[in-house]
């Protein structure tokens, strides 16, 4: 256990070094968030009755999504592991007296956490200063915020597990670009990255909510914006726990299978 904590701390500290990259990313996400909110506002103005959440809740959802993007997007998968698999350097990793899965899981989680920490504080402060319908609102109450925090941790655990499964698949395909693009495309859409789940047609939403992808960003962001509460919230949090356990188990299984017949490409 101690060695994994050490991995986490090392990678966390490393992530905090990339301040310039974080700033660049921040500017990007800020523009992105502003444009998304303006687009949703145009829909809201066209037909307010069809809008499934309030406009301030919508804005909060978008700002949190942008601020936490680094933590909750499959996209921020560790490129390093992928490169290692492609270049064959992964062989060195296999020589270490620790499980590849556990080590990389911890490292990935740490780099997500540190990257998000760097980005989210300035982003959230700025977003909170923007006036009412467009800015980030305070959470409805303390209890909601605690549920949000719990769900956020679970979401990070699930999304890292998804990322690890994608990485394990690239043991098969060598070139990571395609697998990555497909995984990111699917996960992004079903976690409400393009259109929040409440905007989905009712039947599609019900099915989507059961998928592992919606157990990521979807749940905490909707809890914060007050869209998700009561029994439905508890159900989706329980589902997050289920997916966290299941996906880590699948990842471990894949690791065990792939490593049995891994072929290192020369070099």
């Amino acid at each position: 256990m101690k060695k994994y904590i050490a991995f986490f701390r090392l990678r966390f500290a490393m992530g905090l070094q990339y301040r310039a990259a974080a700033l660049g990313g921040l500017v990007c996400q800020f523009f992105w968030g502003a444009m998304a909110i303006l687009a949703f506002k145009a829909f809201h103005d066209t037909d307010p009755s069809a809008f499934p959440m309030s406009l301030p809740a919508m804005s909060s959802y978008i700002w949190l999504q942008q601020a936490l993007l680094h933590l909750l997007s499959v996209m921020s998968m560790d490129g390093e592991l992928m490169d290692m698999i492609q270049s064959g350097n992964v062989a060195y990793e296999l020589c270490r007296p620790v499980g590849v899965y556990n080590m990389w899981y911890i490292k990935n989680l740490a780099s997500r956490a540190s990257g998000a920490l760097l980005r989210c504080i300035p982003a959230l402060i700025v977003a909170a200063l923007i006036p009412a319908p467009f800015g980030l609102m305070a959470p409805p109450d303390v209890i909601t915020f605690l549920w949000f925090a719990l769900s956020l941790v679970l979401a990070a655990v699930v999304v890292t597990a998804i990322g690890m499964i994608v990485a394990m698949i690239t043991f098969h395909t060598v070139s990571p670009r395609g697998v990555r693009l497909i995984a990111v495309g699917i996960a992004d859409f079903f976690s409400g990255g393009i259109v929040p789940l409440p905007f989905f047609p009712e039947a599609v939403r019900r099915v989507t909510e059961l998928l592992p992808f919606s157990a990521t960003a979807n749940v905490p962001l909707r809890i914060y914006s007050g869209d998700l509460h009561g029994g439905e919230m508890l159900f989706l949090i329980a589902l997050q726990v289920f997916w966290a356990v299941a996906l880590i188990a699948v990842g471990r299984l894949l690791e065990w299978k792939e490593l049995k017949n891994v072929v290192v490409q020369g070099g």
Partner: protein
Amino acid sequence: MKLYLKYFAIHLKSTMQYKASFFMTVTGSFLTSFTVFLGIFFMFQRFHSVAGFSYEEVLLCYGIMLMGFSVAQMFASGFKVFDSMIANGEFDRILCRPRNEIFQVLAFRIDFVRIGMLLQGIVMLWYALVKCPVDWTFPRALTVALMVIGSSVLFSALFLLDGSVAFFTLQGLEFMNVFTYGANEHGKYPLSIYGKGMLTFCTFVIPYALVQYYPLTYVLGRSDRAWYMLLPIIACLFVVPCWIVWRIGVHRYKSTGS
């Protein structure tokens, strides 16, 4: 031109060496734009129109933008990896050869996987052309063609600018992505829905609106100003400042020494 075709053939052959990987990447690339389309579809299931634009009209708009963007991505993707060309000394080699540098960077990388996106753009455009209640006259059809060409040129110019920035920073700037990827994604809706301020920015600073919103109003018959159809050509002038930045960059260029 002949030389470019030769490069084209070489890139095509080398891509085809890894067929499975290629088709997977095409699928992935297609999915990224397809999910955006699904998003539009879901939104219009609920709202039926946005700021006076119908589903078909938005698809017409997004189809044009996506086609322009994917063409630019396919052929101007050399500029996307330009920062690494500076870092690893590839650009020094380019400067030694007796050909134009821009030509060589363009020929350095052709990203065929964008074909998935391009196809989607074509399908959406075709669907919108059939479904839109527009009286298709020759000037209107010509305008659509000009919009596609104009947006490819505009996005290519932005990629050129993105690459030129690497002369000064040695590393690509992530926020430049807002102007390429961001503009493509948010250009799915006619730019007027983002409000007056944004429309002004997109008219006079980076001329997205000249290839998108204004000619679109002419095509859809919301404006009688026939000269709107020529705006995409004016938007192509955006290449000039980008080219000047590039020239300044080449002029100041010092090798990184690797």
